[in-house]
Each structure stands twice: as structure tokens, then as C-alpha cells.
């Protein structure tokens, strides 16, 4: 955004906004400079850790949060009532914050993962990663990318996602990478109330009306085929688990199952018996293989940034 119009057209004022701001343009959300979310944070990669593997792993964790955040934000102004609108937007904001830090950590660990932009572009690395990668370069699990469906589908997905991510972040908090560890410690606090929120609504819908229960059971069945992928170890996840900076997701499967069983039994809902959604030639989300819905999501999420790579409009 350019706030300095040609003075020859405005003889009395530099900008019509000057009076509002008293000449201080720092209050603009856009158009000033960007700040580094890791400014001053020591981003040295621990000894014995492959920088590209660490960066790729950070992209996986970041993309899960970013895409889930985008899906949740699509409820804004569409939720069943104002309180849920606010709740889902708050949860989306937490996840966006986690994504931003993790994308910045990926870029700091291995700058070669950041897409090239025209010379002089002010777009910071984390935005370049979010808005200028193609679908095959995103490493998120497919669970987070499919359409929101109705509120029950969204709640079932949020319960599975937040239970899984909380278990991962709890283990990551003890990891050797100080940045990932710090992001995880904070993330654990946030995922705790995301999971509580989803669990409470799951129970409420299950014990509500015949219609709410029917929708919840259908919602759970709809997302269940994407569950197995959450616990499938990708070679990068195994590598970072081996070097002490990451977590093999297979190791959290039992804990997640126990927690879900707790919610299912209180809700009198059976664990779905539907098979996993197949990948293509063995590839799934972590390999950059995504669903059609993801391409549409990316198109919407990236269109403005891609139209303005120089950050001006």
C-alpha cells in the first residue's frame, strides 16, 4: 500500500489519513515493514541434525497448522451462532501463529526451502512459504485440507486433529531444537483448550437431538479415512526423531486412541469401521500428494499474495 500520493494533486495534505494518525503511520497493519517473528531468537541448528530434514519437518508441522487454520477461518460469519464464530476464529488464529513461527523456523534452518521472489520483494520468508509454494510442495496431512462439511464434520475433525497435535507437541517440547521446543511448549497450552472445545461439542452433539447425533456420526465417518495417515511415519519424521529434534507420529497412536475412546464412550458413539483413504503410488499428504479440495483451498488462500509479489497494491 502506498500512502504517499503525488503531492501535486493534494496541495494541502500529504495524505487524507494524516489527520487521523497524527503523522504516525506505524499503526497501519499493512504497508509498513514486516517484522521477523523470530527476531533475536537463536536459530542455530543443533549438532548432528540435517538442516534440510529439520526444515522439511518444520514445514510438515507448519502446513498442518496453516491449512487447518485456513479451513477454520472459513467458518467466520458462517458458524451456527456468534459464540462459535468467535471460538473457531480464535482457534484458527492460534494455529496461524504456530504456523508462522514454524515456517520461519523452516526458513532459518534451510533458506533453500523458501521460494524465490522477484528482487526487491518485501515478502518475508514465512509468507513466501505460505503463499508461493505449489500444492506438491505442501507437506500437511490430508485430514486438514478437505472441505469443512457441516459443523459436526468440523468438530469431529478438530477433535481428531487437536488430540493428535497435542500429543505430538507434548513430546516435541522435550526435543533438542530450542525453537521447535519453545513453539511446542506454547502450542501445548493452546491445543489443550482446542481439544477441550472440540470434545465438549462432540459430546453435546452426540447427546443432543436425533439430528445432531446423526450428523455427528456421519461427520466422524467422513473424516475417519484420513486418520491412519496421521500415524504413518514418513522417512523425514523418522530421521528427525532419530536425531532428537522430531517425533515419530506412530509413537502417539496409542495415546490418541485412548483419549478418543474416552470421548466416544461418554458420547455413546462407536469407533467408525471405515478403511483408510489410499494414497497414490504410496504417496500421501506428507509427500506432497493432496486432494482436489486442497488445490481450491490454495487458490483462494494464495490469490492476493501471488497477484502482488512486490507487496504493493
Amino acid at each position, binding site marked *: 500500500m502506498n500512502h504517499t500520493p503525488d503531492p501535486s494533486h493534494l496541495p494541502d495534505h500529504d495524505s487524507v489519513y494524516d489527520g487521523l494518525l497524527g503523522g504516525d503511520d506505524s*499503526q497501519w497493519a499493512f504497508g509498513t515493514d514486516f517484522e521477523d517473528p*523470530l*527476531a533475536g531468537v537463536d536459530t542455530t541448528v543443533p549438532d548432528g541434525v540435517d538442516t534440510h530434514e529439520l526444515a522439511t519437518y518444520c514445514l510438515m508441522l507448519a502446513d498442518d497448522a496453516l491449512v487447518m487454520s485456513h479451513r477454520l477461518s472459513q467458518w467466520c460469519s458462517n458458524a451456527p451462532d456468534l459464540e462459535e464464530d468467535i471460538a473457531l476464529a480464535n482457534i484458527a488464529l492460534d494455529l*496461524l501463529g504456530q504456523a508462522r513461527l514454524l515456517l520461519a523456523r523452516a526458513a532459518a534452518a534451510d533458506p533453500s526451502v523458501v521460494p524465490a521472489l522477484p528482487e526487491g520483494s518485501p515478502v518475508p520468508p514465512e509468507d513466501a512459504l505460505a503463499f508461493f509454494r505449489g500444492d506438491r510442495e505442501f507437506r500437511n496431512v490430508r485430514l486438514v485440507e478437505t472441505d469443512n462439511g457441516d459443523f459436526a464434520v468440523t468438530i469431529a475433525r478438530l477433535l481428531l486433529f487437536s488430540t493428535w497435535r497435542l500429543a505430538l507437541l507434548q513430546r516435541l517440547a522435550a526435543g533438542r531444537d530450542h525453537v521447535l521446543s519453545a513453539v511446542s511448549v506454547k502450542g501445548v*497450552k493452546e491445543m489443550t483448550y482446542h481439544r*477441550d472445545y472440540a*470434545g*465438549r461439542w462432540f459430546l453435546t452433539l452426540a447427546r443432543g437431538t436425533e439430528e445432531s447425533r446423526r450428523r455427528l456420526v456421519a461427520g466422524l465417518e467422513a473424516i475417519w479415512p484420513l486418520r491412519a495417515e496421521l500415524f504413518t511415519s514418513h522417512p523425514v519424521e523418522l530421521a528427525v526423531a532419530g536425531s532428537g529434534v522430531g517425533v515419530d507420529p506412530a509413537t502417539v497412536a496409542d495415546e490418541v486412541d485412548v483419549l478418543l475412546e474416552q470421548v466416544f464412550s461418554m458420547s455413546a458413539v462407536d469407533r467408525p469401521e471405515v478403511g483408510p483413504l489410499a494414497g497414490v503410488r504410496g504417496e500421501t499428504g506428507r509427500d506432497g500428494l493432496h486432494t482436489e479440495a486442497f488445490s481450491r483451498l490454495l487458490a483462494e488462500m494464495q490469490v492476493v499474495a501471488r497477484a502482488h509479489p512486490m507487496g504493493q497494491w
Partner: protein
Amino acid sequence: MVAAREVAASVTDPEMPMLTLEDLGVLRDVEVDDERVVVTITPTYSGCPAMATMRDDLVHRLRDEGFDDVEVRVSLHPAWSSDWITPRGRAALVEHGLSAPGPAPSHDGPVVLSLQPTRRTLACPRCGSPDVELTSEFGPTACKALYRCTSCLEPFEHVKEI
């Protein structure tokens, strides 16, 4: 010249301007090395959108006081807790109609899943009545829940425990 620490400590939170950054507990450190001032702040929540404004406000206020070379750093560890809001900050919250947080939950060991609505023992910041009800666990900013006093019937915001 006023001490850099004093200037930084007087900068207020952009979303809860009754609190200084020091009272909110996000101001972690102010170091002066020759002419250079290095201020360290920590985010309240991962997605806190006020971080950029805090940084800008710190730089502007310090420059106004004659500190030209200012750097603002982020500290992610230890993670911010509502326990870090000072007694003065808590008093300021109540004085401005907000309810201050109770003790933050511990995150050591397994995190328990809670399927019951969050229960807090609160007093209405306006009339002092303990008869309050939760309207929404999520509010206008990440750090607040919405309540209503069933005595004076006024709504109020509660700063959440984290």
C-alpha cells in the same frame, strides 16, 4: 535522560491499554549497551496480532526519549503465563471492568481432557457479585472469555488462565 528500562516499562498493551507491557508480563528484558537499547518481549499467544504494534510502540517511545538505536527481540522461552500479570496489572484490569485471571493450570505431566464447561470462581468487576455466568469461553481477543453478571446483569470480559 530517562532510563531506557523506565521508558520501555511504561509502554502500554495495544489491546488492553490499562496495562503496561511490564504489568502484562511480556516485557522480559531491557539491556543498554553503549548507545544501543535491546528490548526483549514475549508473545502472550502464538498468534497474538499485537506483537508488531508492541514492537513499533517500544521503538517510537524510546526514540522520543532520545534512544535512537533500538532493537526489539522476541523470546519464546519460557512461554508467557497469565501468572506473570503483576498485582498492579490485576488491579488495573478490575478497575477498568475486566476480571483478572486466577492461577494458571500446570502443564507438567499428561494434559487432562476436560469435557465439562470451564468453572471459575469469579466476582463481577463492576458490582462484586459472585453470581456470574460464562457466555463464551472465547472472546474478542485470544486472552479473554466472556461472562455476564446475573446480579447487575452487565457483561464483562475475563482474562483467561494460561
